[in-house]
């Protein structure tokens, strides 16, 4: 049974498997029911094969990555995970913004890592639409705090 994430303002069961430690993309077979997310490096190394495979494709970027390297890839991706290694590390906000505004990525952008209830509204407004909460965060309470503001300046 999968874990619960927030996606598009609803609690849903996660259909993706984050498998960043794996060697490459050739370990298919394990967790056959899940779509796999690979790191940017894995994606770039195995791009041709991954593009040839059927099914949804997901990439996780770390916050040292330059998201603009995905310029030619966004059309082929269903999910991009943006990592927040610490809640106070705000690079992911700019990465998400660039993915949406500069690269025109329309599919799921998911926050992973130290994803906390009280920061979701900023993430959402930066273009992130799915949240894999840190384990100790309450999904219901987080969902209720997704929109603390009805107005904004930006």
């Amino acid at each position, binding site marked *: 049974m999968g874990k619960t994430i927030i996606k598009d303002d609803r609690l849903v069961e996660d259909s993706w498997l984050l498998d960043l430690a794996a060697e490459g993309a050739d370990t298919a077979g394990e967790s056959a029911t899940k779509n796999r997310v690979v790191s940017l490096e894995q994606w770039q190394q195995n791009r041709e094969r991954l593009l040839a495979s059927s099914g949804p494709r997901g990439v996780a970027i770390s916050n040292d990555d330059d998201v603009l390297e995905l310029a030619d890839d966004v059309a082929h991706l269903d999910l991009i995970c943006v990592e927040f290694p610490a*809640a*106070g*590390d*705000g*690079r992911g*906000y*700019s*990465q998400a*913004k660039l993915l949406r505004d*500069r690269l025109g990525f329309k599919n799921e952008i998911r926050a992973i890592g130290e994803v*906390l209830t*009280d*920061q979701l*509204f*900023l*993430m*959402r*407004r*930066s273009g992130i639409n799915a949240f894999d909460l840190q384990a100790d965060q309450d999904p219901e309470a987080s969902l209720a*705090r997704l929109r*603390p*503001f*009805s*107005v*904004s*300046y*930006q």
Partner: protein
Amino acid sequence: MYQYSPEDQCLVNERVAQFRDQTERFLAGTLSEDEFRPLRLMNGLYIQRHAPMLRVAVPYGLLSSEQMRMLAHISRKYDRRYGHLTTRQNMQFNWLALKDVPDVLADLATVEMHSIQTSGNCIRNTSSDQLAGVAKDELEDPRPYCEMIRQWSTLHPEFSFLPRKFKIAVSGSENDRAATQVHDIGIQLVEHAKTKQVGFKILVGGGLGRTPVIGKVIRDYLPKKYLLSYLEAILRIYNLAGRRDNKYKARIKILVNSLGIEEFTRLVEEEWLHLREGSLMIEDASINEMQKYFQPFDYAKYRDESSASSLAEKLEASPAFAIWYRQNTQEHKIPGYRVVTISVKAPEEAPGDMTDAQMDGVAQLADDYSFSRMRVTHEQNLVLADVPEHKLHALWKGLLSFDLATPNVGTLTDMICCPGLDFCSLANASSIPIARQINDQFDDLDYLYDIGEIKVKMSGCMNACGHHHVGHIGILGVDKKGEEWYQITIGGSAEEDAALGKIIGPSVAKENVAETIATLLTTYVDLREEQETFLQSVRRLGVAPFKEAVYG
């Protein structure tokens, strides 16, 4: 003065509700200390030595008398009947109870005030010239642009978790009273050499703290409409590339220095190309709308009446008033009016501290004599910017009754001083007792007037909240094996001639600070040429003769 729209008010009210929810969860134990810390910091709430300290935003230092009365009320109801003016033109309270803070914020919201982003690693209160709108040397009032920046930066989703805090200052005059060269971004209104259109000169990477740096020009001229897109480009580059591994290396100045200003500029300009024609474009109509909030008052034509002669009579009759007039008032762009600086530097008080009675008193005086408005200065004083000449005497009497008429503006005892070890948990050494020591040593006003303009700036630690690097005399408290010592610098300036002070030698013991300053001043008096200020003498002579005098 800017007036909130229903949307502005809504945002501030919702921020109060959000913070109330966060505070309640923290007090109930469902939000951990680690999680709560950045949330409260984002709202100006520090946990200090004695109690939480709340820093209330005063955008670009401008206050109405109604707002000042609310600050007095808050100090009375929730604190110990005083507040402290800061070098970012804000006011902070030192003795609040955490459980009361949501109520304090709700009270503030009723007068269009808040504490959003007065702390934390985000864009802080934009500061400006305390003479904005009334200075004769001004190209254009900078406050409309400050307000635009305030709105753009408020709860900015992309820039709420920057590598480190971020400070912006705007000056509308060549004579820089906003310290733009020592800000993360300094903005100066300038005229285009050819077209004569007013735009902005943008500086980046200035700052004080552990590594003081004078800002570098990233753009000589930026048309007004691009202000926000350009700021967004700078902030994005900084957010993505600024260091996060070491908080002492995380300010934008470190990034600018490590990349070099040419490369940093290239990155920003490239980013900006994508943003400049987008939604951040500022239309002329928006500028006009914003400028309407900052129009000159309906000034009376006093000059051709009897006002000048009435003032002259009073000056003649009262030497004490005449001294205050000379020291604490200055020219206004409209004849018949004066700009009054209220010294919040009474010798026996901590610099920048105001009691509730003083706050209420100033609010009333502003109502009576200065269009119900006042400004907080980054030098921790207040300004009543629009006082008719013939009302100055009555104002002075009023200020006297609140102990706010010390005629020491611009002198040695008009010091910038951080709260220091007495309040701040970051401090290594005390500041306020040193200010007292200096006041005790230099209690002869005539001597201070002879010394003339001198800016003393003091910080209790290298975080430099007291701007010591840019003091004509800077005093930095350091900890040496548990004892408080003080490093003295001379020759700094935060103005258009910005410079970092030079250390005169080994730090001095706590009891010797005022004496050391006395030696510096004696040296200056001995060596100065006619009309030369302390700063000019230091620049001409260098540190050597001063060092020699202090250390032998």
